């Protein structure tokens, strides 16, 4: 094994410090992560594409600039040379972008997403593109057309979704940072079940230009990392106004890194949302959540209880708005201009039939399910009852948040009701799958920011639990302030980062079947192919 354990286990902030001090080169850092990917990704399957040559070239460029010194070296971004993985929903020049779908297999974008341009401007080597549920539709990555990602804590379990690839890559030390997208929890829920940090910024806080849209009014790109500070650092690279995205906020970006460094929560009011814990939440999740509350209280925060009575309608309204927008956003995938084109096997060769055959072959079942739902919800005669009512619920949820934030500076809940479930366990029960996002969806419906950080391991299964913090729109800084304090209190209790307790993935562990076993791989593949 050639992997450099110290480098791959370092946070982005630590790597940035070592790079700036020239204790280590960007090429060494990048190569260490590429080696780790080579060593473990056969088991984890976090990556759909590994971008070796370009990543090393960018790293070498950073090293050359540092070696030359002078103003160019001074002007290097703090994260220059720190590698990153990008969710394969975000378009990149020079690498394929699939959205986890057969319909885009082999497609190369002619343009970079705004966030990717910002990564390039900061000279962060892009390690590759990470796996996801097809078009970000799912909570387990099992809906990827290219096979599921496995949770580094237990390879038989889901890494969450849709951004399971980004979360697993960071949890498995294949990348210190990653980009995710969050429409109903796709950054936060994978963060929770893999013991990592994930942030959904305020809607409009990060440009969506170049993120393949699922639900335009809910989608948001955000950071994935192992520490709260690292997410703040990455958030500052990608955030801020973009003239290519009309929904992008004009506000100047707050100093999120400074917020993550405040180090106290004294006098802050932290609100427990009555409707987002208790019944339906796993005991181990509930226990870890309560411990976090105690720690915050001991640090001088005031814990208050708030009620958001309309959150109970959030899931239902979400499953009308999201598919409605998705049905329209996904109409462009028709085989006419790019991507897969399938000709009908028999019958007349009309454009309608070519589009139909292409979409029938190119989309998976979950995507089709949502397109059908959305098409129905927008249909004449049903629009008011479905899409219209769902928009009203959205307003009610925003009012619930307004009322709650009048009483509390930050809200808190478990991120997901359960720890990671087994691959295949909920694949044939879409409603059970949808329930994973019950605590994360309200933030998307209201456009407020949310952060998930590791809260410990559940007693009953030893798997990671996530704690979610929510703040008012444009107050993302509060998440980083409280998140960093809670993280340090928890790590003090654990005696180090939670991920120190995760399996190494490179030593065969007795009793755990190896995913390298071809027979087991077949089983997984047949799971993947059955939906």
């Amino acid at each position: 094994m050639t992997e450099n354990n110290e480098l791959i286990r370092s946070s982005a902030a630590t790597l940035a410090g070592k790079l700036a001090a020239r204790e280590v080169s960007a090429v060494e850092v990048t190569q260490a992560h590429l080696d780790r990917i080579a060593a473990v990704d056969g088991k984890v399957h976090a990556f759909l594409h590994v971008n070796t040559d370009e990543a090393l070239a960018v790293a070498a460029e950073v090293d050359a600039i540092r070696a030359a010194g002078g103003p160019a070296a001074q002007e290097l971004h703090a994260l220059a040379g720190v590698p990153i993985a990008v969710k394969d929903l975000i378009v990149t020049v020079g690498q394929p972008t699939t959205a986890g779908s057969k319909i885009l297999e082999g497609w190369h974008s002619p343009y970079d997403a705004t966030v990717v341009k910002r990564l390039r401007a900061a000279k962060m080597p892009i390690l590759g593109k990470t796996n996801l549920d097809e078009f970000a539709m799912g909570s387990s990555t099992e809906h990827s057309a290219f096979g599921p990602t496995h949770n580094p804590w237990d390879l038989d379990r889901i890494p969450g979704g849709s951004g399971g690839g980004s979360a697993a890559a960071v949890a498995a030390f294949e990348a210190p940072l990653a980009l995710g997208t969050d429409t109903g929890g796709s950054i936060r829920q994978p963060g929770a079940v893999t013991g990592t940090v994930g942030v959904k910024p305020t809607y409009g806080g990060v440009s969506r230009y170049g993120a393949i849209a699922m639900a335009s009014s809910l989608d948001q790109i955000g950071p994935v990392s192992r520490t709260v500070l690292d997410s703040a650092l990455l958030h500052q690279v990608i955030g801020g106004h973009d003239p290519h995205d009309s929904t992008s906020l004009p506000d100047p970006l707050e100093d999120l890194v400074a917020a993550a460094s405040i180090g106290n929560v004294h006098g802050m009011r932290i609100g427990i949302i009555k409707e987002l814990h208790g019944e339906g939440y796993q005991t181990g999740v509930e226990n870890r959540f309560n411990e976090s509350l105690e720690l915050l209280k001991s640090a001088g925060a005031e814990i208050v209880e708030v009620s958001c009575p309309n959150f109970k309608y959030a899931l239902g309204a979400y499953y009308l708005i999201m598919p409605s927008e998705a049905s329209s956003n996904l109409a462009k995938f028709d085989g006419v201009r790019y991507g897969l084109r399938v000709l009908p096997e028999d019958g007349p060769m009309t454009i309608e039939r070519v589009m139909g055959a292409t979409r029938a072959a190119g989309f998976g079942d979950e995507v089709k399910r949502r397109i059908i739902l959305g098409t129905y919800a927008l249909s004449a005669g049903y629009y008011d009852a479905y899409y219209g009512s769902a928009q009203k619920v959205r307003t009610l949820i925003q009012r619930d948040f307004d009322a709650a934030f009048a009483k509390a500076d930050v809200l808190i809940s478990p991120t997901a009701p359960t720890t990671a479930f087994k691959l295949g366990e909920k694949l044939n029960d879409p409603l059970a799958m949808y329930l994973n996002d019950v605590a994360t969806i309200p933030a998307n419906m209201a456009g407020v920011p949310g952060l998930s950080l590791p809260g410990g391991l559940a007693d009953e299964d030893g798997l990671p639990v996530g704690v979610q913090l929510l703040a008012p729109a444009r107050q993302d800084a509060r998440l980083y302030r409280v998140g960093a304090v809670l993280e340090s209190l928890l790590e003090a209790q654990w005696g180090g980062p939670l991920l120190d307790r995760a399996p190494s993935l490179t030593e065969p562990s007795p009793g755990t079947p190896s995913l390298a076993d071809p027979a087991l791989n077949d089983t997984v593949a047949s799971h993947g192919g059955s939906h």
Partner: protein
Amino acid sequence: MSDATLSFEEAMEKYDPVLGFEVHVELNTKTKMFSSAPNVFGDEPNTNVNEVDLGMPGVLPVVNRTAIESSIKIGLALNCKIAETCRFARKNYFYPDTPKNFQTSQYDEPIAYDGYLDIELSDGTMFRVEIERAHMEEDAGKLTHMGGATGRIQGADYSLVDYNRSGVPLVEIVTKPIEGAGSRAPELAKAYVAAVREIVKNLGVSDAKMERGNVRCDANVSLRPHGRERFGIRSETKNVNSLRAVEHAVHYEIRRHAAVLDSGEPVIQETRHWHEDTRSTTSGRPKSDADDYRYFPEPDLVPIVASREWVEELRATLPEPPAARRKRLQAHWGYSDLEFRDVVNAGVMDEIEETIAAGATATVARKWWMGEIVGRAKIADVDPGQLGVAPATIVELNTMVEDGKINNKMATEVLDGVLAGEGTPAEIVAKRGLAVVSDDGPLLEAIDAALAAQPGVADKIRGGKLQAIGAIVGGVMKATRGQADAGRVRELILERLGVEG
């Protein structure tokens, strides 16, 4: 298969027409409605496009501010109210000319609504057309269907798509149902579209060239028996792209509907295709009000907010309204009411203005447009402005006549040469060897011959009957094959005969 029709007179005897128009105006902004790609007509296919116009994965629209300003100006010129806030919506349908498979348009929140336009008919009658709304949308790409008999997508071997037009800003102006036009309906149709075209051209927001599709008209026609309030079932004739065609299409549809109703059959609600060659329409696709486009508010765009201050700023930039402009031009040009109305009805007011701007007098400009070009346009069956006569050509021809280089008869011959594509007037004069014979020698020879041939006429002139001189002039012109300057000939004849002119 051609449809049965009644004569227009019989149709009018039995039925009352109700009209409605959707006029699409392409704005002449530098860039497209939602992207930074150039808005340019006629370039190499698929060159004026970027990832947004091609509907690539991940792209987002950004609204063109100039297009919003142009739309507000159009709304104001149509006496509309301007919405304080309005949104775009998605109109969802699968068709390969629309790269996203939805059109970004406005649905229930148009930027301008509740306006009117007063239309002057050929005899000076004023007719008010109520405007329902003017809304913004993006144009689709252009499809060319190859192979197959009809040039339509059905039966084509393959189709070519040009997305240069995709995303070009459009304003769609929709009238309320127009009642009470009676037999003036075809004329009103033409006058209404002409008025809209004049407005957008004056505003400078569109190139307003109908032949390029800058202004496109869908004409709705229905008939009802006289005295009945309820509207009949309408047809919508699509893409009628010249003023004359608008008039003819309405005329034809009235006659066709009348025949259908007379036969006891119901009119089918459908789109109709206009055929310029046969001056008739054929059935397109059936259109029902239940076409389900699954409209919903465009989530990628924020609402357009038109503050009252902004609207008033734009109102202050509006040019004079067409009616005021007409009054000013008539006074300036010194035309009589009848002369001016003829000019307006012939559709050459803009052309005369341009010709005067190019250096001609008002009288000369009118003489050429009304005397020469309108008649030729009628024969060629096109609008006069589309015949291909540039104002500079008229100025050049007129200067040659005034300088005595050619006479009026030659000038019309040169005009025909210009229209036949033979070159500029100077080139044609040179090529055809046209020049007034200005050397008096050959003229005097011809005069002497003409006087000798008609001695009686010569005597009459000597006797003071000057009007008889025409016969001698005619003889000279004939002998010189029209190349003499008739004025000079007249002078020389009088001189020869020793008569004071």
